[in-house]
């Protein structure tokens, strides 16, 4: 996304071009970089959550839900999912807050303020979460 941050990747092919040494620990040099990398790494847990979801659906359709529940209850699995929960929540907050920066919405010639778009997004998040919880838990 932000290749310019890492440097050294320009298309200059001249042999005498100056190439600065790559800073291997660039993401530790400032808090902003570290948060940026953490946010990017949430994608690993998005992928894991999908694998977990597919395992669940497979167990439900295949009639092996007790086995899946036993696996999910193992301490390392709970630990992994607690981290996955933190990562997906971090992803949700940052991604939903990003929307007004990516799209400018104009109403009646005025720009809709960022907090309104963000508020709408977070309301949608709450509603979808409640709907899913209701549909899953009602008996």
């Amino acid at each position, binding site marked *: *996304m932000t290749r310019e941050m890492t440097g050294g990747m320009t298309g200059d092919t001249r042999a005498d071009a100056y190439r600065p040494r790559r800073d291997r620990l660039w993401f530790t040099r400032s808090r902003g970089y570290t948060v940026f990398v953490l946010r990017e790494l949430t994608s690993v847990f998005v*992928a894991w959550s999908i694998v977990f979801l597919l395992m669940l659906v497979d167990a*439900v359709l295949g009639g092996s839900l007790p086995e899946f529940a036993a696996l*999910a209850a193992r301490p390392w699995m709970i630990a992994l999912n*607690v981290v996955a929960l933190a990562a997906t929540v971090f992803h949700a907050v940052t991604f939903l807050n990003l929307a007004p920066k990516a799209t400018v919405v104009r109403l009646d010639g005025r720009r809709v303020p960022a907090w309104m778009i963000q508020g709408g997004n977070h309301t949608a998040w709450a509603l979808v*979460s409640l709907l*899913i919880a209701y549909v899953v838990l009602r008996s």
Partner: protein
Amino acid sequence: MTPRRRTPEPYLWLLFTGGGVVAALVLPVVVLLFGVLMPLGVVDWPDAAHLRALAGHGLVRIALAVVVVLCLFHAAHRLRFTSEELLGIGRFDRLIAVVCYGGALAGSIVAVRMMTYMS
């Protein structure tokens, strides 16, 4: 005027954004319920028959397939650039792209097959 070269990048960014929104709206509550609260015993596991009926519903299957496909492409797109930036391997972009999107495609095929399989 030079003809513009066609590139799949805009579509990949579109999948990334769509997947980002879907992942934000859907995944936290799924992980919270099935990954944390139910295993810890805070919330009881739902009846297997109830979940089975739910997974058998056409709308739920379509929703699951959409969620899986979009989220996988979101993750693939982010992993592509994260790995290149973190490890400084941007010169292998082509190969990394093939591996990332290929993985997402494989997962998508598994999911769609699972959702279209009548049980």
